[in-house]
């Protein structure tokens, strides 16, 4: 009996210890599980945008193939998966395109195997249609089924992969949000520049002018010679202020644009560019004019392009073409120079070389436009700018 009690006691101690350890194990397992889940989740979270990108490419390939079979272009609309991880995740999860692609993939599980029917259809078709059509001269009916099969697959895929109006809108809104922010910051920088020019330049000159007039007034009776010199200075200051003011105004909106419209302004620009420039436009005299901001952007882009061509390309001749498309205004500037124009970020080499192109791109982007530069070494350099607007 005593032995039994002692053993039971030891056993109890052991069990207590064991229970403690078990409890510890539970804790450990829980922590481990949490760790594993967290690890998987974190890696998974980081992988999600990449997976979505892969899925997009997959769906894109199907769009291309199905579109080619149907003889149409199946558009795609996705939110951009760029920037910090948080933004990429949000876009990957919120993009209606992601779910559309997922639906298509699930649907492929269900009807995708149907395409395998094409293989058995071939021997059957060759045999049956061979007799039916080849010998009896009737319409073949088995082989065309393969074509019907492809039609079905392409039709279903196209329907599933074509972005919904909502997806198209979402993409558009996203793009507009970005370009609007760009436009605002470009506008902001522009306003600051004008303010600085007026304050530091023109206003300072007018203050100096007023000062000289004040001094001349004081010297008027006692020292006419000094007064005269001060008045001369004052007039110089006034003229310089006027010249600066003209310069600022030109930078805001070239006056000749108002007077002569874009084509006329470009002709004047071309005449002063140092190149022989051919300008063609499809606009008639009473055609509607683009909004002032669009015309100004087109003007500055052409001005910059012609300056670059005159300075760097070694070309003698350039072509500027203006076209009024349904979507807006298209400007193409082409020179037969040495090419090799590069866009360098303006931070590294400010105001040298490529930064001109970058500035042009910003100006165009601020108006939701696009700009493509092709400039292979050896030329020609072609800059194609499209600025959307309503006619």
């Amino acid at each position, binding site marked *: 009996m005593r032995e039994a009690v002692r053993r039971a006691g030891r056993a109890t101690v052991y069990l207590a210890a064991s229970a403690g350890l078990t409890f510890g194990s539970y804790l450990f397992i829980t922590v481990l599980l949490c760790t594993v889940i967290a690890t998987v989740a974190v890696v998974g979270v980081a992988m999600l945008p990449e997976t979505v990108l892969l899925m997009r490419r997959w769906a894109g390939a199907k769009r291309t193939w199905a579109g080619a079979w149907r003889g149409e272009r199946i558009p795609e609309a996705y939110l951009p998966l760029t920037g910090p991880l948080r933004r990429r995740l949000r876009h990957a999860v919120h993009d209606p395109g992601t779910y559309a692609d997922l639906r298509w993939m699930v649907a492929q599980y269900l009807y995708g195997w149907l395409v395998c029917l094409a293989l058995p259809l071939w021997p059957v078709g060759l045999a049956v249609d061979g007799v039916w059509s080849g010998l009896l001269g009737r319409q073949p009916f088995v082989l065309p089924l393969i074509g019907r099969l492809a039609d079905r697959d392409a039709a279903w895929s196209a329907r599933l992969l074509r972005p919904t109006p909502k997806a198209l809108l979402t993409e558009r809104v996203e793009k507009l949000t970005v370009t609007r922010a760009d436009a605002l910051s470009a506008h902001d920088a522009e306003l600051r520049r004008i303010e600085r020019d007026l304050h530091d330049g023109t206003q300072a000159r007018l203050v100096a002018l007023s000062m000289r007039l004040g001094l001349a007034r004081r010297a008027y009776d006692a020292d006419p010679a000094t007064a005269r010199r001060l008045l001369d200075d004052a007039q110089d200051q006034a*003229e310089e202020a006027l010249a600066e003011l003209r310069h600022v105004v030109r930078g805001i909106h070239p006056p000749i644009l108002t007077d002569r419209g874009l084509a006329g302004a470009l002709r004047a620009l071309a005449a002063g560019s140092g190149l022989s420039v051919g300008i063609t436009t499809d606009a008639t005299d009473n055609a509607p004019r683009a909004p002032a901001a669009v015309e100004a952007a087109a003007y500055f882009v052409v001005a910059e392009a012609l300056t670059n061509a*005159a300075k760097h390309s070694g070309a003698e001749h350039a072509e500027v073409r203006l076209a009024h498309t349904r979507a807006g205004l298209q400007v193409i500037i082409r020179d037969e120079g040495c090419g090799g124009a590069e866009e360098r970020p303006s931070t590294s080499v400010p105001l040298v070389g490529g930064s001109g192109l970058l500035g042009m791109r910003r100006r165009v982007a601020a108006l939701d436009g696009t700009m493509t530069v092709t400039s292979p070494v050896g030329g020609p350099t072609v800059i194609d700018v499209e600025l959307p607007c309503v006619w």
Partner: protein
Amino acid sequence: MRVVIGEDNALLREGLVLLLTSAGHQVVGVADDGPAVVPTIIERRPDIAVLDVRMPPGFRDEGLRAALAARAAIPGLPVLVLSQYVEASYATELLGAGAGAIGYLLKDRIGRVEEFLDALDRVAAGGTALDPEVVTELLTRRRDSPVDSLTPREREVLALMAEGHDNTTIAATLVVTERAVSKHIGNVFLKLGLPATDGGHRRVLAVLAYLNNA
């Protein structure tokens, strides 16, 4: 001289009237918008018209068009065009007819009263008055043109000629003798390959035609 003014800005219009009357000229008509310019000129028959480029109703280049229309109606009518800014292409249009008696100046130049009145007289007498800024633009227009082969002094002489000044004024401005000016002009015409012409606006027109086509 009898002058017609076309200027919509009241401040500048009054200033011009004051300036011209104090210089002994007579302002016989004032137009404050584009459409009124030509009828006023035809009615008043001035010795010279002073027109602003930008006028109502469109605030574009009404004054410039009015100048061309007035000269079409009255051939050889002296016109001095003033503007807040100058464009070489506008100068080309104004000089296009080739008859002289044309001025095209920045409004800033009115401040230099003597020079402004001198330009006015020059234009009224059938000469040319072209703003230095236009001339500079014309001179720097073309790369590797014969203009680059001129000496700095010859370029100065060319610029002053293009602005419409005669030898006496050029000599006074550059502080050299008239003989020296004639020599420089001879060199300029030789280097640019222009046929030598005697003074007057014919010479100015030849120079401008050259610069325009260079």
